[in-house]
């Protein structure tokens, strides 16, 4: 049974790390209070809840904080085990594979994402970061084939750990696509991932949470850039 206590999520609507947690909460049909943080003026609650990194997402369960998006995902799985399917597989080996690929996503795709939006100073640097993302996505294309075993998602029939972790980046990829005039997830290079993206975006749990308005994100980008704040994880 789900433990008593309210759920509150501190986040920023564009953050891939926040988005993935929201998708996971939706998958379990868990009600929660969402608090949009202003990274330029972080709330006392955020600073008190995550003193080490001072970043979003922060999940507060009965007032007690859980930090780091992948840690939060596992927490949700464990506490709300009876609220529907878990994102992490039950089998230890498959679980290890999911954790491995999730770590790979944040390591390679995450670093490239930072580069293509926040740390690049020229269009050349942006292009180089996009190339790094594309290379990582190429590896993930193979991983998708392996993990999905012909099914819709990394997690099989249902959205799983790697799906939500990677899915968090889709909002920004849409914005970058608009900036550079071509797709980061290129159907010619990574056809499985391109179809995966469509399915993920169409999923109920992603609705209203994975941004689909590239213009709105691009409008918000200067605000984020001005902050030069440590990035969310």
């Amino acid at each position, binding site marked *: 049974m789900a433990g008593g206590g309210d759920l509150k999520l501190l986040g920023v609507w564009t953050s891939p790390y926040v988005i993935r947690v929201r998708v996971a909460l939706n998958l379990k049909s868990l009600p929660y209070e969402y608090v949009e943080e202003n990274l330029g003026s972080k709330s006392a609650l955020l600073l008190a809840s995550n003193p*080490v990194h001072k970043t979003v997402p922060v999940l507060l369960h009965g007032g007690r904080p*859980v930090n*780091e998006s992948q840690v939060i995902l596992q*927490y949700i799985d464990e506490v709300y085990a009876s609220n529907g399917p878990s994102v992490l597989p039950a089998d230890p*080996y498959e*679980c290890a594979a999911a954790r*491995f690929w999730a*770590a790979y996503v944040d390591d390679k795709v995450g670093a490239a994402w930072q580069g293509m939006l926040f740390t690049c100073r020229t269009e050349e640097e942006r292009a180089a970061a996009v190339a790094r993302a594309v290379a990582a996505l190429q590896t993930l294309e193979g991983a998708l084939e392996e993990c999905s075993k012909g099914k819709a998602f990394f997690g099989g029939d249902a959205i799983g750990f790697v799906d939500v972790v990677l899915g968090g980046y889709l909002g920004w990829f849409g914005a970058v696509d608009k900036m550079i005039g071509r797709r980061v997830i290129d159907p010619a290079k990574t056809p499985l991932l391109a179809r995966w993206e469509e399915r993920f975006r169409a999923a109920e749990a992603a609705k209203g949470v994975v941004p689909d308005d590239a213009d709105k994100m691009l409008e918000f980008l200067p605000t984020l850039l001005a902050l030069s704040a440590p990035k969310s994880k």
Partner: protein
Amino acid sequence: MAAVEWSSTRRAFEVAWLALVALLVAAVLDDELTRERTGEMRGVLVVSVAVDDTRDSRSGVKFDVNLDLSGMVDIVSDQNTLCLAYKAEPSSAASVHTVLHSVIHTQKERKKELQRMVAGEEKGLVLLDFWVSPFAQRCRIALAEKGLACESVEQELLGEKGELLLRSNPVHKKVPVLLHAGRAVCESLVILEYIEDAFPEVAPRLLSADPLARAHARFWADYVDKTVYGIGTRLWKLKGEGRAAARAEMLETLRTLDGELGGKAFFGGEAFGFVDVALIPLTSWFYSYEEHGGFSVQEEFPRLAEWARRCGERESVAKILTRPEDVLDFIGLLKKCYGIVE
């Protein structure tokens, strides 16, 4: 390693015979015969020939045979050295040949074993390892704490990587890799979680059953992963401002860890657990960080230093951790590889 001094023409003949044998050994093992010293690095097996020659000590030809066997041979003596001591007799060359022959035989057996591992036929636990890797040591400590038998297979990382490693970890080509019944698990923290999951009845548990405690443990293990080793590497690799910045970050990191530990015996409380396993192998590197950064963990963070000593009392930790001096030597070796002059 001992040099051999030969003092007569007869000896010279035996030198030639030994050289031939060594070449044969090398050919069979498919290993490179190197004449350069590889230093005191553990994991590098040196076959050296010692002659107890009481008759004539006038120097003749100095002869060393160094073979890099990458830890694949059973260790005969304590210092990873196969020492062949024999009397200076006409049959001595033959006795050397006999011993080397058994080395070859063992090597062939090991090769067959590795081939079975590559083919996924090995049933037990195997860890692809590197002697100084703190990440591999996390896995070995966890397995040792749980009494789970695991074979450690030392990998060649500074030269050409072996087939088993490349097949088991094609994405990163790094150690550690845990092979369980031939299936590969990569990334040390993923391996730690796997060990917990795959052997649910085996004590001690390194992660609490309570989800919030688990979340805290995962958070801090992740923090350790994001900070210590990366900052430490910059500390010894860089100079000037780069080193100064790394020093400041290292102190900040250790301060944060010391604060999180607080007055507790271990990071999770009373029992040795996940975060302790994640951090303790890195404490072998503290000495090197102190040397490069000019600070003392004992002075600045006595609670953390005490925690390290407390962990070091555990049999698993005491046996598995690299000696701090050996880590410093290894860093010296890396600096040479990178062309860094202190």
